[in-house]
């Protein structure tokens, strides 16, 4: 088991504005699996992702990633954890505007002890011909590819994707999902994908439904459909 979350609780605000977002989450994800987390707005899926990513502190419970317990880690140690183990992909690409595609990826390449081969990664993501372009010269899909490449170049063990296709059209979304599938297959990266998109659940190994801060359903998808064949994206 690569990821193990036990009785995770997280709340925000005080007194009048107090809101309990995660009300005791138990979740396990196998190494190399792709897991999708679904749920309506405000169900707590992004908060869960942020807690696993060490971006948000947990109130109680336990988050164990690759044997590392995140609860109680200092900000510095959390930063080391993210540096060594994690890759993040967001709905908005948040690229450095005045660095080229290649340089944006290199920013994270330098963080890793054994990064992936940059040229190979560019080739895999179809960015070779765009490597010297600035983000403003790219389409949304190309920018997201760049963001994926930036997240992957460190060769992270866990890739956290927060609405990776949220800002993309159907065709581009499919391209991105195919890419993630390929990365998973090629590098064995464990992936946690938070999405509203109902079709993505067909391509992953594990599906988790959240409702009001609790896991409503958690099941393994035995009949995976390749991303290229997904409909209604």
């Amino acid at each position, binding site marked *: 088991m690569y990821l193990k979350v036990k009785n995770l609780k997280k709340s925000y605000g005080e007194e009048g504005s107090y809101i309990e977002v995660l009300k005791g989450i138990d979740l396990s994800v196998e190494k190399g699996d792709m897991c999708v987390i679904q749920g309506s707005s405000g169900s707590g899926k992004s908060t869960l992702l942020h807690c696993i990513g060490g*971006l948000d502190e947990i109130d109680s419970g336990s988050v164990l990633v690759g044997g590392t317990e995140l609860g109680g880690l200092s900000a510095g140690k959390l930063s080391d954890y993210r540096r060594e183990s994690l890759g993040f992909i967001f709905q908005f690409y948040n690229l*450095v505007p*005045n660095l080229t595609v290649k340089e944006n990826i290199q920013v*994270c390449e330098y963080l890793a002890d054994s990064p992936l081969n940059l040229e190979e990664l560019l080739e895999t993501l179809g960015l070779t011909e765009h490597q010297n372009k600035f983000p403003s010269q790219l389409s949304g899909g190309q920018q997201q590819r760049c963001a994926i490449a930036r997240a992957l170049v460190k060769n992270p063990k866990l890739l956290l994707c927060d609405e990776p296709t949220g800002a993309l059209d159907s065709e581009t979304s499919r391209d991105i999902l195919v890419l993630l599938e390929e990365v998973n297959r090629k590098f064995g990266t464990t992936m946690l994908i938070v999405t509203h998109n109902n079709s993505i659940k067909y391509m992953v190994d594990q599906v988790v439904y959240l409702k009001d801060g609790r896991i409503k359903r958690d099941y393994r998808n035995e009949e995976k459909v390749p991303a290229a064949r997904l409909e209604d994206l």
Partner: protein
Amino acid sequence: MQRILRKRIFRDLKENIFRYLALGFLIILGMYIVISLVGAADSIIEGTKDAAEANHVEDGQFQVFVPLSEEEKLSIAKAGVVLEEHFSMDYELPDDSMLRIFSKREKIDFVQADSGNIPEKNGEILLERRYCEEHDISTGDEVMIGDIHFKVSGIGTAPDYESVLRNFSDSTVDSVRFGIGFVTEEDYRLLKERGESISSEEYSYAYLLKGKITQDELQEILQDMEMSSEDIDDEFFQEYWERTGGWMVPLPKVMQCITAGENPRIASAAADKSVDHASGLAAGVIILILFAYIISVFTVHGIEREARMIGTLYAMGVKKNELLRHYLALPVMVTFIAATVGTALGYSSFGVGRQMIQPYGYFSIPSVGVRCEPYLLIYGLVMPPFAAVFTNYLVIRKKLDRPALALIRGEHKKEKAKNRRIRGSFVHVFRIRHILREKRTAFTVFCGMLISLLVVMLSLNCYALCVHIQEENAEDTRFEYMYTYKYPQEKVPEGSEEAYGVTMKKETLGYSFDVTLLGIHEDNPYFDANVNEGKDRVLISSALAQKYNLDTGDTLILWDEENGRYFAFEIDGAVKYSAGFFAFMDIDSMRELMGKNEDYYNIVFSDFELDIDSGRLYSTLSKDEVKKSSSVFVSQMTPMIVTLLAASVLIFAVVMYLMMKVMIDRSAMSISMLKVFGYRKKEIGKLYLNGNLFVVALSAALGIPLSKAVMDRLYPYLVSNIACGLNLTFSWQMYTGIFAGILALYFVINRLLMFRVSKILPAEVLKNRE
């Protein structure tokens, strides 16, 4: 990673080239002002000090009625004091100018030849530099002193005549009418024998204490030296002596003893330059604060704009210190390069060289080289980048302390939401909402404007001080002539107004100045001082009130150095008189207080030139000399004022540009969005830009009086060594002019910046909006 991010630094520099050029220009200009003013002041102050030390400048000098006897000289020498005769005779030259001739010096106050040589043989003379410049005299020329021809062997300076004042009481140097010269001992004796001098020989001794005796101890030795009145062949003295019954008290031999510190001829260039020094440093500190502030505003603005990207990098594991180093790199690089250029310019002939021209045209000082004082070099080269590192470190650290998630979400520190109801038309409500939403930016603009206004006020205060001195000194001086007696006549000259003056001392901010306690009649026509009877009541001149911050009801304490006692007076009020530090009191009360006869006087004022023998007088002051003295003060200050004023206006314009750029940059996206909705240029102007105008106008309305008040408080410290009143008031026209200037500047800058904003395509805005 830093290597990759470094590429971004140069692109950021390229993208915002105008902003960084403006910032660089600001730093270059700031460092140029500081280095040129302070560097020139340092060069003159330290250079003249070193030259004076090398030339064995005196510790003091004293004048005697008759030369000291051998025993008296021996008793002084035994105390460890080095003594040298600096006797002199004054000669009138054919062009009506006057030359004071000394024998060349061997022990104290050596003459330094700038060109040629010190007289080696008879028939040679060394003349003082300023006199030669005014009379177009070169080495090798001939001058006639008395009836003897001298060949000018050299042109130079003497440390005891930096200000070539004929009398200690003279207020200005007039090198057209007065100069000094040095001849061999034999020639001096020959001149004396010929008896062509216009007055009798002056017996002055210069001394060096050599650390073996104090000034007070020497004073005591000198005070013990007495003489018989018969030894003095001055007819005016004899007449006065007989009439006043002086024979009843012992006659001191020493007329006057003055230390080097009190001597207005010594180290006067340094004293003059110390104003530049203080003003330059003050300007430097303000400028440093100013650009540290601007850089921090830019950095904060940049980080806020890039918050999501920073948060993402954080999420990826990039550490705060790595980003901190990255965000510090560009400001430090820009400030260092600009500071280096500014410092180099400051030390060039356009800077220090230019500021050093003026003192050479007034003071008789030897050529001194440009000094690179280590503290100033450090200030010029290190302080700007250090200030950038320090302030940026603080603000960036604070900004980067926010959690990665907050940065990714673009969360700002939220204020408690207040549901303000604003009534009025849509445009009115929109404008107010815009101003309230951007109040942090408005405060930033206000602070930037306030700091840059301080530099403007510094230079305008210098200007106001000079203008007031020039105008008021002439306006307040109602007499045409003021005669100060050494030996007063029996009767007050007809048509003149008698007065009784005693010079006392008063200290402020570490400097001691002469204050004249002046006894006058209530109905005297020359001062608006209706003095009240009473030995402890005075009216003070406005200059004294301003300099010492005195008011009605305060106690004025003066130190009578000659008699070693303090006097305390209650101030009845201030009288408009800017040309000197005066405390006016009823003349009869003053005579009584000082134990003088009921008809005693030692000063007369008149509307016309009086026929008084010069031998009776210490000094004569004419209204023209007062005017000239004011204009000399103004002309000495002019280069500094021009430099400061021009630079401060430029600095202000640049700061305004940068601040408004921040304002308009923040509005640019919204303005472009309005264009997408179909708003026209005029309508957008109404909604956004008029709100900015309101912010600028309000900032100016608050900033102008506030910066003026701050600078008025600070200014007395900058001119603490200058003996003048401190009327720093601005006319309402000046205030209006500054306000109008700021608004005009706003419209120009606004037009420039809006031109850029209007070029942004709406489609591009939408694309970048994410």
